[in-house]
């Protein structure tokens, strides 16, 4: 444990250096995240003639800018790194290092955060300018935003890691993640705010883990929950994080026995 604590900052530094080295590509990846803006266009057009549900035009602007911000700040790409390294055999190198491969990948993904912040800062500025009346006025929900964002990132990272471990056994693990992404786009509130969903689907989305990845932090920023409700939801989010953490651990342990390093 102390070894991990000693080595992790170094891994973060290496990851950051790597992100800076590929900054042009990195920025292009960031700018490719524009789905919230595409959705904002249509909903803003719809809200010209009056609010839709509880969202006015400014309400939609605040929602989708906040969604963009959450998406930018909780990025992970471990599933593609895993499937690629497992297939071409470079994962053998990771296994040799004295620290768990998943921790190495998590450092890679976390280390990109400062650079992602550079893109996120303009979004925050526009958000504060356009959406101020729509944002939460309670300092408490802004405080909860920090653990909520961390939880959202952990859920995204751990789901990718879980599906990634399947690549130790099957070849089309990346396609499975693609399918998961399709469901997540709808059920996490990335495309449409959850409270505009028709009844039955809204109830379903409320219990599935997808909402904790995006919708929950966004709603915290918009101040849609009371303090008690927010705390309950945060507890539920972290319960999912713990479950996913355990499953990932078990899946990794049993999967790694099946791994035959190619080209070693």
């Amino acid at each position, binding site marked *: 444990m102390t070894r991990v604590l000693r080595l992790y900052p170094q891994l973060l530094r290496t990851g950051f250096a790597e992100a800076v080295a590929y900054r042009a590509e990195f920025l*292009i990846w960031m700018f490719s995240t524009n789905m919230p803006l*595409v959705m904002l266009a*249509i909903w803003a057009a*719809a809200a010209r003639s009056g609010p839709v549900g509880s969202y006015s035009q400014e309400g939609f602007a605040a929602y989708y800018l906040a969604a963009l911000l959450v998406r930018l700040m909780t990025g992970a790409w471990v599933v593609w790194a895993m499937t690629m390294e497992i297939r071409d055999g470079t994962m053998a190198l990771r296994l040799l290092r004295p620290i768990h491969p998943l921790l190495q990948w998590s450092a890679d993904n976390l280390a990109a955060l400062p650079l992602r912040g550079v893109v996120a800062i303009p979004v925050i500025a526009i958000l504060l300018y356009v959406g101020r009346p729509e944002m939460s006025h309670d300092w408490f929900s802004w405080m909860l935003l920090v653990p909520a964002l961390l939880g959202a990132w952990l859920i995204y990272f751990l789901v990718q890691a879980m599906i990634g471990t399947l690549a130790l056994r099957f070849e089309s693990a990346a396609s499975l993640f693609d399918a998961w992404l*399709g469901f997540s786009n709808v059920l996490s509130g990335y495309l449409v705010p959850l409270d505009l969903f028709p009844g039955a689907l809204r109830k379903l989305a409320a219990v599935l883990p997808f909402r904790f990845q995006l919708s929950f932090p966004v709603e915290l920023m918009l101040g849609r929950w009371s303090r008690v409700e927010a705390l309950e939801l945060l507890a539920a989010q972290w319960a999912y994080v713990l479950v996913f953490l355990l499953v990932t651990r078990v899946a990794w342990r049993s999967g790694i026995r099946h791994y035959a390093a190619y080209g070693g």
Partner: protein
Amino acid sequence: MIRAARVVRAQLRASVAMALQYRLEFAVQGALALLWIAVTLFPLLVLFGNRPEVAGWTFAEMLVVLGWFVALKGVLEGTLSPSLMQVIEHVRKGTLDFVLLKPADAQLLVSLSKIEPWRLIDLLGAGVIFGIAFQRIGRPPGLIQVLLAVAMLCAAVLVLYSIAILVVSIAFVAVRVDNLLYLFQSIFDVARWPSTVFRGVLSVIFTFVLPLALMTTYPALALLGKLTPQTAVAALAGSLLFAGVARAIWIVSIRRYTSASS
């Protein structure tokens, strides 16, 4: 010309045969294409559950636009993107030399070199969406309207192809931007809405600079019988001009290309 057609046919056959080797992949990717069509439809269903009309478009009319979007996305991600990603890979590795040495036009050779046939599902999906849309409207489009829509579709594919060629031409100059094509793919997502959704600067950009209006809105208007002849002629002329410029830039950048292998 006949020679070019024969080259294209041989290329198509080779890349389809290549893709069909992976049969499980075929089934998996086909199922995924269906899922993503459903994901694309979802916001529209919620939207029109709340509103009878948005930006002057009814649900059925908007479905027609979405149908063209699904079809063109299939063309873009099933043929153009994979083929041109290969060019960028060639540039990076220096193997583009082998393509350039072949006794046929290089642009022709690279344009259809890799195809994902399962994206045909997108075209089928688009057909179903059109079917539902025109059933709701209550009358099928007339022959003239269909012909006009086909002409508009040709213009749309031409512009889409030209933009992809332009992006690849940039890759010759700056090798490090190999994900520029992804950026364009994500911007193309805007084309799922009719162009009247946008106002001010954005509507000008999406009509003239990055002609997304031409790709889905105009073919949809043609199919609905609402496209004026002037707009149709202007769109066709514009797309030919766009293709000419893209071809010229491709030729210039291929001349400036210095291989990475030597």
